[in-house]
């Protein structure tokens, strides 16, 4: 069995052309992850550039309204660039610089990871090219312009379903084309080893902070941690330091689109099965012959037919549970959090909020939950308006 396994999942299913590149990355990461000055530099960037630590905010109105467990929001939306994506990008770009790379490439779904990569590339003086599905370019036109403003080149991807999976494929293809000066800043806990581990480690700052913050606020651990899952980077970051705390329930919310009993869904764990794609063994939405399914979600960031290998393993072991949340539920939650707490969440994060709306009222008042608000919802306002029948365009 090869390296980078989470149970049976993970591995390195990539063309031979890329093998030395991922080996070089693994060696560099193994060196720098224990390097004091690297970690100090990264912490400096986290705190003084990205606005960490992010708040653990007690959502008092929501708590009262739902009448069950206390609700805390882990406010990754308050990070610079408006989402958790910057945590991973700062880590990977710093690593890329140390490796002597001068150019970074990235895929993006909703545009949040692309914006974060373009931002950090601007900060660190790296050349940056972002691959984004043509459909997503349309859904998130402002983010496309934002990336250009930051000096990045954006390539719309027209292959396949023109969404996130195609953007990943195209970025992988581009990496095989130009390796020596280029680092692929993968945006989620997916792809070949060592990416799922590297991205998880950089995102684990979310649960490291949240665990301490919750202990300080409540004198105990939360009863549940809830996060949305596409590839799964904010969720694994939110779960990681709670994994040994068996009494804390870990709940990943998948995008069910129009429902898991329809073909228009992206809920991988609910509807997928074991497969090999994008460098990893994990669960994928696919047909009986292994053709990857054209998935759908209102959320461009969760519109992915697979899930990171560590999530697949947490599911197998029963340590985490994964629940489907529909477009309708997510849009309701988007509006609810805006109205109730004055926090407009990303439509991705609204999937986690939506499940909390069902779970929290069933819990008792001496219990508490943490919902990770992985990003802010400004980018989604026009799309939600259209979903509600308003004629608003960006």
């Amino acid at each position, binding site marked *: 069995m090869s390296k980078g396994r989470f149970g049976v999942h993970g591995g390195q299913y990539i063309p*031979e*052309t890329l*093998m030395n590149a991922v080996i070089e990355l693994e060696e560099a990461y193994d060196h720098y992850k224990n390097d004091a000055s690297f970690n100090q530099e990264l912490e400096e960037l986290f705190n003084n550039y990205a606005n960490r630590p992010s708040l653990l905010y007690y959502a008092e109105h929501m708590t009262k309204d739902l009448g069950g467990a206390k609700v805390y929001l882990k406010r990754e939306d308050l990070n610079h660039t408006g989402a958790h994506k910057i945590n991973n990008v700062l880590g990977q770009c710093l690593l890329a610089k140390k490796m002597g790379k001068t150019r970074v490439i990235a895929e993006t779904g909703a545009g949040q990871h692309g914006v974060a990569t373009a931002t950090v590339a601007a900060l660190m003086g790296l050349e940056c090219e972002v691959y984004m599905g043509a459909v997503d370019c349309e859904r998130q036109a402002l983010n496309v312009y934002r990336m250009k403003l930051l000096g990045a080149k954006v390539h719309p991807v027209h292959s*396949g379903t023109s969404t996130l999976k195609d953007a990943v494929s195209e970025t992988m*293809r581009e990496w095989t084309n130009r390796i020596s000066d280029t680092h692929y800043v993968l945006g989620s806990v997916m792809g070949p080893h060592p990416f799922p581990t590297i991205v998880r480690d950089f995102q684990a700052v979310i649960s490291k902070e949240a665990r301490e913050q919750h202990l300080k606020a409540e004198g105990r651990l939360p009863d549940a941690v809830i996060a949305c899952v596409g590839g799964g980077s904010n969720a694994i970051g939110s779960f990681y330091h709670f994994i040994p705390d068996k009494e804390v329930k870990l709940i990943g919310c998948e995008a069910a689109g129009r429902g898991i009993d329809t073909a228009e869904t992206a809920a991988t764990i609910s509807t997928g099965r*074991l497969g*090999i*794609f994008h460098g990893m063994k994990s669960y994928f939405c*696919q047909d009986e012959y292994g053709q990857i399914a054209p998935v759908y979600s209102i959320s461009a960031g969760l519109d992915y037919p697979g899930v990171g290998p560590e999530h697949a393993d947490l599911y197998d072991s029963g340590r985490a549970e994964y629940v489907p949340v529909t477009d309708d539920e997510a849009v309701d939650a988007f509006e609810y959090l805006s109205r109730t707490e004055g926090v407009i969440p990303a439509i991705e994060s609204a999937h986690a909020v939506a499940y909390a709306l069902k779970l929290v009222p069933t819990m008792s008042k001496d219990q508490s939950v943490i919902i990770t608000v992985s990003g802010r919802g400004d980018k989604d306002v026009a799309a939600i308006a259209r979903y509600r029948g308003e004629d608003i365009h960006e």
Partner: protein
Amino acid sequence: MSNRIQDVFKNKKAFIPFITCGDPDLNTTMEIVLAMEEAGADLIELGIPFSDPTAEGPVIQEANIRALSGGVTTDKIFEMVVKLREKTQIPMVFMTYANVVYSYGSDKFLKKAKEIGMDGIILPDVPFEEKSEFSAICKENDLSFISLIAPTSEDRIEMIAKEAEGFVYCVSSLGVTGMRSVITTDIGAMVELVKKAKDIPCAVGFGISTPEQAAEMSKKSDGVIIGSAIVKLIAEHGKDSVPYVSDFVRSIREAIDPA
């Protein structure tokens, strides 16, 4: 292990064309295979289409989409191979992606491949580190699991070559499949490193599209693999592509045979 693949490289340079099964339809695929054999091909790479072929350039990506939208499936391709084997004994290997095999059930897929008369398999997204879950089953079924080496392989070549079977697929260029005007990799040096580790034929693929390139590459190796240039002809001429592919294959055959 002895199968038909080894004979391909005996006393001559081998020409290995690739086509995507079911593009534009399986009947045309059969006709093209037979025509390519007649025009001088030595071994056929039959591509089983995959929805997201990450090692392919645009030409073969589009062929995959055409084939899948035409309703081709792995089982229909197996049936086509059965019919082909009634007419030809030319060596054939499948070229597809890990998930197509894994999702079918690797055991079931590879056993079936042997039964219907295939000689080997190429999986471009299965590198040395991951090959055992497939190559062990190939061995049980007397199929060659073809290994690839790339311009970036360097210190990995020896390790890969030592466990290689059938032939070594030498990837000529960085990037994905597709036609290139110039190939800059030192193929001669790559082949030499392989031969130092194991006496096994080396065929060069990725980027070759003209008789001149084929002639040059065949001088430095044991054979050439051409995909995109043929798939492009099929894209242009569809069901009428047989004579165009035939002429092209013949031109490559003539270019690589000693004058």
